[in-house]
């Protein structure tokens, strides 16, 4: 799609009026248009800034904090103060250090889960939708089968067999979150594959690979990104749920869900122990969803009213 047109023009938007400038005839590389549209999406930009801040904080802050998540030297349930900005929990752990560590793991798990769900779901969905016939039937029955497997029981089984660590949690969640992605992408691929522009590509002798990569996937970008961001958001929540019932990340490591699990009893007495991790979860889910919206809009050539 990246067209190298012989006529090259500078990247800066040219505002000087020229003859026939009404319709911009510069070589418009699509990614550049997409980027420009995304940068103009206000909610997405705000969300992106917030998310970048959260990610940076999770990565950088451990170096500057006096304590890490393994520290248990504080008093039991100390109130927030200069030493412990968010107080300590029942084991005397520094809450801020826990929160940073928990955010790290929750984000890591969420990204792995979203990547797995997207790759598995889009691949199976696109192949089933394009090839049709028995491949389609087989894949979709596989999805049906997968959907009725009790996920929680299997994760519990895996946890007891292999012990629990963040990547096992991520893989377990990833293996159970691709089905809806596959279904949606299969349906969309099916309808795209019957569109005349795909038929035109076939008539000119394009291979199936080319059709998927050049025609189907670009038209699925919007749905794929929205689903991926949804998967990130749900994975953060699912991990929180798993950790909450004790199947996720374990001590001495922690995750946002585990912190909530440890401290929900203090909601009345020491609300900050509950609300701090809760707020981070909500912020991650919200910002990721808004960013997904922005990406989808940016990829849709008909969305913008402003000529890019």
């Amino acid at each position: 799609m990246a067209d190298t047109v012989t006529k090259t023009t500078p990247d800066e938007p040219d505002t000087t009026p020229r003859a026939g400038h009404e319709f911009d005839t510069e070589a418009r590389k699509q990614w550049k248009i997409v980027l420009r549209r995304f940068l103009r999406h206000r909610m997405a930009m705000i969300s992106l800034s917030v998310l970048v801040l959260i990610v940076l904080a999770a990565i950088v802050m451990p170096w500057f904090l006096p304590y890490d998540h393994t520290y248990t030297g504080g008093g039991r349930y100390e109130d927030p103060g200069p030493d412990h900005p968010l107080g300590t929990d029942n084991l005397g752990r520094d809450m801020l250090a826990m929160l940073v560590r928990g955010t790290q793991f929750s984000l890591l798990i969420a990204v792995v889960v979203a990547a797995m769900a997207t790759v598995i779901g889009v691949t199976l969905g696109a192949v089933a939708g394009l090839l049709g016939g028995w491949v389609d039937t087989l894949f979709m029955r596989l999805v049906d089968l997968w959907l009725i497997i009790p996920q929680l029981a299997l994760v519990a089984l895996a946890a007891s067999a292999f012990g629990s660590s963040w990547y096992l949690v991520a893989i377990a969640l990833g293996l159970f979150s691709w089905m809806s992605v596959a279904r949606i992408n299969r349906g969309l691929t099916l309808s795209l594959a019957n569109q005349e522009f795909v038929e035109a590509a076939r008539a000119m002798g394009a291979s199936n690979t080319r059709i998927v990569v050049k025609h189907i996937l670009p038209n699925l970008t919007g749905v794929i990104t929205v689903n991926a961001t949804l998967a990130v958001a749900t994975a953060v929540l699912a991990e929180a749920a798993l950790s909450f019932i004790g199947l996720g990340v374990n001590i001495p490591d922690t995750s946002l869900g585990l912190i909530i699990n440890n401290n929900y009893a203090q909601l009345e007495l020491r609300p900050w122990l509950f609300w701090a991790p809760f707020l981070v979860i909500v912020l991650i889910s919200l910002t990721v969803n808004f960013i997904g919206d922005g990406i989808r809009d940016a990829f849709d050539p008909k969305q913008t009213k402003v000529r890019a």
Partner: protein
Amino acid sequence: MTTAKTSPSDAAPAGADTGQPLLQVSDLVKSFPVRGKGIIPRTVGQVQAVAGISFDLRAGETLGLVGESGCGKSTTGRAILQLHRPTSGSVRFEGRELVGRTARQLRSVRRDMQIVFQDPYASLNPRWTVNSVVREPLEIHHSSWGDKRIQAKVNNLLELVGLNPEHRNRFPHEFSGGQRQRIGIARALALEPKLLVLDEPVSALDVSVQAGVVNLLEELQQRLNLAYLFVAHDLSIVRHISHRIAVMYLGKIVEIGTRDEVYGRATHPYTQALLSAAPLPDPKAERERQRIVLTGDVPSPVNPPSGCRFRTRCWKAQDICATEEPKLEARGEDGHLSACHFPEVRSRES
């Protein structure tokens, strides 16, 4: 449009070689399975969308394929291009058999036969610039050409179909329906094909735009010696552009002949009914036009009538029509092919 003076001559087009036709279709059948419901769907029947049709097409010639919707016109076009794999029968292009070839084997033939679609909105990828759309066939078949040569060709093609090459970096939704159809034509012409299947290329356009596209197609045919299979339901446009015309009903050709034979001396009752439904441009003739109004609906192609497929709606139907299928053969005085047991020219001069 019927009164335009630049209509093609009735005889075989100049430059057509007298030997082998460009395209030979014989006994072409395309059936689609009807599936039942269940976990593993079973085939419970077959729809014969195309039920054994045969015709030839010479280089530089236009064959109009008419019939009402659902009669298998578009399926015929797609089956010829192997976009729908034919169930049986033979499609020969320049003597080479296409039915049963693998996608890889078909690749070289695909250069010579291309398609223009009905819907100018669905036929262009909405995420691609016009430039990418027209480049695609060249990138697939002439990857060795290099960027400069491909780009020059794209610019030429856009000019050829009457578009400004400077607009090549726009997206399809920035163009009007007629312009989009021109983009589709440019894409189809990129590989310099010998045969174009035109699948209702103007029926989605405004009447005022239709003329422009039809004239473009005629001009291109003369310049590039293209053969057209023109699928349409608009009788006046078919009459304007076609050298020969085939009339389809329920998956079969019921009558085929030159333009004047079919329009002037039709012998099949379905053709006569179809022609009588078309309005005439001359108001006086239009007032005196006698329509043949058919009763009933087109029967289901899952379970077509025995014998002649048109007999359920035909005013001439006799017992023989139910028992014996009329062959498509020379009937009547001028000898063009018609599939009716009781061929008769209707007394009407148009």
